[in-house]
């Protein structure tokens, strides 16, 4: 075992892991976060806390992780390189570890022009792969960038993201291998709606031997409405939502679209679970955290292993 991360223990023991995303509030309202945290408690192996996702200002992911940990959750700290330079990123890694956070997800982050601070400078001092390498250097060699030794190095289980649906397609698995080489222990994928294309990606990853060294968590986002499906298909960067799926949700009455979306999510979970190399799922129920338990119940994944 490289770390004390619960997620690592679950995956290393060969269990099908379940993580769920939790978006911190747009402010300091503790009650909002506690409500989301309470809904998820006991149903998941780790709660994955977003870092100002889509470049919208929210409570810091370190603070939110710490609060959720105090509630009994095992947090996964998302860190984007958009907003902090290497000084701040490394400093926050020290702080997060001191607060008991044992798992980190290294991301570049959506471009700042997507959010509510469009005039901000985009830092991008490091890219996500360089951040992965930085965290690994801290853990395995006890050093920061530049080689200075650390007093009490953070020992994090390291995650990265991959979008199997982005272009250029031929490049996606190469990038996955590059993340593995940089030090990623697990990968979370972009939301899967095009199951065929995801299967193709997984087959390629298995063939390249990547999945023997890297746990892949399949990203699942339940669709709430046909409008949301269309929005994701047209407006969200890097999404692949097949027209047939939009039609399926649009084909049921409005009040039943959420249920249909959840049904699709459950079916997708069942499909990806059968694929070789998929080690678990990552559920991103955007501002819908309270529906996670029923999705997991329906998928037969609500009972989490003791590790």
């Amino acid at each position, binding site marked *: 075992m490289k770390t004390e991360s619960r997620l690592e223990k679950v995956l290393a023991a060969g269990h099908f892991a379940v993580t769920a995303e939790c978006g911190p509030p747009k402010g300091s309202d503790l009650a909002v976060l506690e409500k989301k945290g309470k809904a998820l408690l006991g149903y998941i192996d780790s709660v994955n806390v977003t870092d100002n996702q889509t470049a919208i200002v929210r409570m810091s992911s370190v603070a939110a992780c710490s609060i959720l940990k105090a509630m009994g959750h095992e947090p996964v700290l998302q860190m984007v390189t*958009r907003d902090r330079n*290497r000084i701040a990123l490394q400093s926050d890694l020290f702080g997060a570890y001191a607060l008991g956070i044992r798992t980190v997800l290294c991301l*570049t982050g*959506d*471009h700042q*022009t*997507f959010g509510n601070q469009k005039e901000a400078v*985009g830092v*991008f*001092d*490091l*890219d*996500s*792969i*360089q951040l992965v*390498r*930085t965290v690994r250097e801290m853990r395995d060699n006890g050093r920061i*960038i530049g080689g200075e030794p650390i007093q009490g190095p953070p020992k994090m289980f390291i995650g990265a*993201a*991959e*979008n199997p649906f*982005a*272009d*250029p397609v031929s*490049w996606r698995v*190469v*990038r996955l291998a*590059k993340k593995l*080489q*940089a030090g990623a222990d697990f990968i979370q994928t*972009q939301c899967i709606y095009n199951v065929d294309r995801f299967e193709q990606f997984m087959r390629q990853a298995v063939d390249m031997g990547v999945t023997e060294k890297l746990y892949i968590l399949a990203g699942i986002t339940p669709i709430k409405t046909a409008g949301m499906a269309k929005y994701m298909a047209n407006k969200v*960067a*890097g999404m692949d939502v097949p027209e047939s799926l939009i039609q399926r949700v649009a084909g049921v009455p409005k009040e039943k679209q959420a249920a249909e979306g959840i049904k699709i999510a459950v079916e997708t979970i069942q499909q990806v679970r059968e694929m070789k190399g998929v080690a678990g799922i990552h559920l991103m129920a955007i501002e819908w955290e309270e529906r996670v338990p029923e999705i997991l119940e329906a998928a037969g994944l609500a009972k989490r292993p003791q590790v």
Partner: protein
Amino acid sequence: MIVAELKEISEIRRMIDRYSSILVVGCDSCVAECAAGGRRETMLLAAALKLSYAKDDKQHTITESCLDRQCVDDFIEGIAHLVPEHDVLLSLGCGAGVQALARVYTDKPIIPALDTLFIGETEMRGVWQENCLGCGQCKLGYFGAVCPVTRCSKKLMNGPCGGSKDGHCEVRPDIPCGWDMIIRRLDTLGELDRLNEYVPPVDWSTSHSGGPRRVVREDQKP
């Protein structure tokens, strides 16, 4: 070259209305190539200002002159005879030109008429593309002569982000994905293997992050 664009006349006027005698100074180098501040544009701006002031019934003296290069002392001295009789110099140079005028003509206010944008190329007539950030450590040799620092909106050094779609950047569909360009170019050259290597964090100390840069070469000094 340096690419720039003319500011709105209203903004220029807000800055120069307080002066009664204005010397409009063009630059016939980079900003002429991008049709923002060359001889022709200097003439056009002077005419536009005269018209604008005449419309408001205001009396301003407007003189025009265009330097071959506004960022080199030897050329800047070419307007020395005109400077004393004017209250202000309105520069159609890039930011470097404006500041060079200010260094030479210490007792005159210098006002920019352009917004300086980037180091770029003329892709075709009427189209200018940014392609160099002047980071001070050119790595184009590793990336098929496509700059990831400039052409990728996130300055990624280790491959495209998840927002690359059909060759377009997630920021705006009219921005080609820099990494898509790098991959295609290296593929054509049969050098895709260059991308397998991990690229360590960039040393930004040679870029503007290290403060304003300066090159001093003793062998070139007079």
